[in-house]
Every structure is written in structure tokens, then in C-alpha cells.
């Protein structure tokens, strides 16, 4: 049995939920710790080892120069890099505000000075090559758990490729798009989240990004229009998490 893999968790600019969700694995953390040894995880421990990691997890967007440095360090010092959460994989909410950074600063603070050295928010995947991207705001803990176990045992993790509609039906949730006319982006959004939003009676917000491969946003747009939602609303809904132009 090989020795334990070293794991590092790094947070760039994010709400903190993705890193917290790792701890919310609760007792399954013990299974993960069978195979991993945590090297750096600022939310969970005060260890700060500047050494080589086998697996690193990065969450958040690159929004400041400090973020970029941390990301470059993480990539250079890890064998396997996982981009975790929609911030890291698609840019999420902060990445979808469309204004250059100076204008944003002026609009919020009144002047353009930039002491925190902020940049236009971009997801991690636009800066470095990652080995695995797990989207979701927040991501599905089960997916992260399976990915970590697979990597520990030496096999590539499985990536889902089906839309949220499939998961809704597997769980037998009532279709909110058809039965309640709620704006649901399920048919064009990547599944793997177990359709938790629909379980609570909301429409899918598309936080996991579009399906890879062939997808039909034009048809989804037409469907939402025919239900009475106006153009501006639909376009903003598409753009929020995955910065998607229909």
C-alpha cells in the first residue's frame, strides 16, 4: 500500500463555501484521510508547509494579484490540480459582471485607486491548465468524494455528461419547468448536483455551466420566452454563473 498522498486546499477569491463544504463531508472525511494527508488548508488547520503536493484543490476566482501568485504556486507544486466550484471553473457571479476593473472600483468606491491590486475576475481554468474541474455553486460533496477516492486509488475520476433533467427524473421530482412554469435551465445545464434546487421547488439556476458538447440554448431561450419571460431576464439568467451568451 503506497504512502498517503499530500493534499493542499487553496482558496482564492470566493465566498468560502467550497472549502467549508469539504469539511462538511463529516464522517466521510475519515475515509478521505485514509489516503490523504492534509498539507495546507487554511480553513481547517494552521499548517503552512511550502512543499510538494500530490493533489491540490483550488477554489475561487483569480481576482487579485495575490490570487494569481497563490494559484501559480499551487500549480507548480502539485501533480494533480482540481478546480473546485463554479468560481474556479466558470467564473461565477463575480466573473459575470461586465465592466473593466477600474470602472467597477469607481462605481462602488467612488475613485479608481486599487490598493488591493484587483484584476478582472477570471476563473482558474483561464489561467492554468487543470486536471479536473468540478463545477457547482456549491458543488456536490458526493462528486468530490468519489473524485478524491478515485484519484487515491489510481484511476481517473468519472465526469458526468448528462443534463439536470436526468437527475430530476431519477429522483422523481416534479418538473418545475413544465408543471409550474418556473424558469429552469435544467435541460441545458450539466448534471451531477442531484437536482437539489428542483427538490426545493426552484428552477435550475445553471450554476454548473452548460453541457459539454452539443447543446441547444436557442431552444431553451424559445421555451422560456413562450412562458412569458422577457428577453433581458433570460439573458441575465444565462450569464450569471457560466457567463454564457445564448
Amino acid at each position, binding site marked *: 500500500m503506497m504512502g498517503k498522498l499530500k493534499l493542499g486546499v487553496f482558496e482564492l477569491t470566493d465566498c468560502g463555501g467550497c472549502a467549508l463544504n469539504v469539511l462538511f463531508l463529516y464522517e466521510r472525511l475519515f475515509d478521505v484521510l485514509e*489516503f490523504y494527508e492534509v498539507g495546507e488548508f487554511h480553513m481547517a488547520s494552521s499548517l503552512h508547509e511550502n512543499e510538494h503536493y500530490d493533489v491540490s484543490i483550488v477554489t475561487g476566482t483569480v481576482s487579485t494579484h495575490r490570487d494569481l501568485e497563490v494559484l501559480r504556486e499551487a500549480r507548480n507544486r502539485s501533480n494533480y490540480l482540481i478546480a473546485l466550484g463554479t468560481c474556479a471553473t466558470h467564473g461565477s457571479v463575480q466573473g459575470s459582471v461586465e465592466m473593466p476593473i477600474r470602472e467597477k472600483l469607481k462605481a462602488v468606491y467612488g475613485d479608481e485607486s486599487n490598493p488591493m491590486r484587483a484584476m478582472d475576475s477570471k476563473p482558474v481554468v483561464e489561467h492554468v491548465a487543470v486536471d479536473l474541474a468540478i463545477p457547482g455553486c456549491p458543488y456536490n460533496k458526493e462528486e468530490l468524494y468519489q473524485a478524491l477516492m478515485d484519484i487515491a486509488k489510481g484511476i481517473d475520476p468519472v465526469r458526468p455528461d*448528462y*443534463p439536470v433533467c436526468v437527475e430530476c*427524473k431519477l429522483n*422523481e421530482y416534479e418538473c418545475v419547468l413544465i408543471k409550474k412554469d418556473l424558469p429552469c435551465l435544467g*435541460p441545458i445545464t450539466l448534471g451531477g448536483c442531484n437536482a437539489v434546487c428542483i427538490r426545493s421547488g426552484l428552477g435550475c439556476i445553471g450554476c454548473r455551466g452548460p453541457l459539454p458538447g452539443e447543446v441547444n440554448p436557442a431552444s431553451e431561450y424559445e421555451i422560456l420566452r413562450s412562458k412569458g419571460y422577457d428577453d433581458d431576464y433570460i439573458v441575465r439568467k444565462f450569464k450569471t454563473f457560466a457567463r454564457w451568451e445564448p
Partner: protein
Amino acid sequence: MAIDYNRTMLPPKKFFVRPRDKMLHLKNGKWENGVEEESLVLFGVHSCDIHGLKILDKVYLGEPVDPYYKARRESAFIVGISCTPDEYCFCRSLGTDFAMDGFDLFLHELPDGWLVRVGSVKGHELVWENEELFEEVTEEDIQHFRECEEKRAKSFKRKLSKEGLADMLDLAYGSPVWKKYADICLACGNCNMVCPTCRCYEVCDKWINAYEAVRERRYDSCFMESHGLVAGGHNFRPTRLDRFRHRYYCKSYFDPSAGFNCVGCGRCDEFCPAGIEHVKVLDEVRGSLQ
């Protein structure tokens, strides 16, 4: 209890091939068999769904037999119920609006009670044991039954012309109608998930703790891009058009001993977000041939 429902979301196949079905459990490096026996009574199954189960039987109970399906099917007691068609049903066009067999008891609603048809030995034994609940069938009852069936037969709003359906579709491979609908289709997979005869499944191994795993199967949809993907990257159904057309071919396949693969329940129409209608597509394809 709502006896006069028109259709459920997931068909009765969900009891026999579960949406997420644990097949095998890995413990200490060895597989443990997960076949369970559980008794089940399905009450209120429509005749289209009973036909759907018969079609699934052909696949899952053909050699080699799927033990999970077999165990659940043999211990299930099926009570059918009569229904009135709504705007999505077209089972009459496919001959599945009346179930001749495949059930244990079938209840037909009459103005003053229920006409019960017995379809198997198990059903017969149940009636035997509860004779006091049943009365003899009178001529008047048969008259009512006939009237109800005739009224029902006339109230279908959709008719699928099934003459030469399989051959016609084969000839219409290059019809532009396919492209027209494939452009609207979202490839979301809803129609496959709710269909009583769709049976594609994907198998996945999941870890339940550090050393134990479970092999699980879940419903899969032929609209998924990976449905025709083989190792090395070649995809036998690469475009949405290919997959869209494939579903109609698979559903309209006619087996002389089991009928069409479609039972006309109307679920695909009800649950399609893009509003694509099965009968309409087939009629348009037929029309484009002339």
C-alpha cells in the same frame, strides 16, 4: 386515493428496474450478490403500462435472465384499472388500450361498481379467498362494460397511423422533418426517463467508504452524447439529429410477438420541455415521403 389519474411521471418500470439500482456490493475484494426478494402490490396500473411491462419482460427475462428484474416481477401482484384518455394518450392506435394478459386482476369502472377480470392464477386465488367481496356478473353489467368501452374508444384525441410504420420510417431516413425537430430538441433525455419501454442503463462503480464499493445502474438516455461513444473517441451517433432519429427508430421497431416498442402512453409528449409530440413527428415524416 385518486383513481382517475391520467398518468404518473415515472412508469411502473421504476419498481422493477429502479432509477438507481444497486446491483453488486464489493466487500473484501469480492462481490456480494444483491438480489432481494420483496413482495409488491401495484394497484391501479393502466393497460398501456401493463403492455409496457410485457415489452420489458421480453428484454430482461430473455436469456440470460436479469435476476433483479425477475425476483421483483415474480413477487409483484398487479391490479390494473380502467382509465379515460386525455389529450396526450394514443394507446388505441397501437392496440395497447386493452390488456389481455400481463396482470393479476383488472378492474373496470362501471356506473354501479367494478367489473373484475382475472388474469392469472394468483389473481384467481385472491378472488377465491375473498369470495364474499364479489358478486356474479349480470347481463346488465356486461352491457355497461360494453358501453363504457365504446365511449372510451371514441374519446381519443390522437391517432397514430401505424400502417407500415416500421417500413415507412426506414424509407424516410433522409427526411428533412428529422432535422426540423432535432433543431428544437434540447436532448435533455426527459422522454427516455419517463418512457415505460425505454430500457437503456448506465453502470457506475461508486465508493461508499474507504474500502467498499457498490456497482449501481441508473437510467440512461440515448440522447446523451456518450451513448454511442467508444474508447478511442469514435462516436457512432455524433450529432443530435442522429440520436433524435435513433429514438424514433428504436420505438417504432415492430416485434411480431410483442408489438411496437411504443405503448402510446403519452408521457413523452407531456414531459417534453420543447413540446415535441411523438405522433405529430411520425405523421410529418410520413407526409414528407409523399
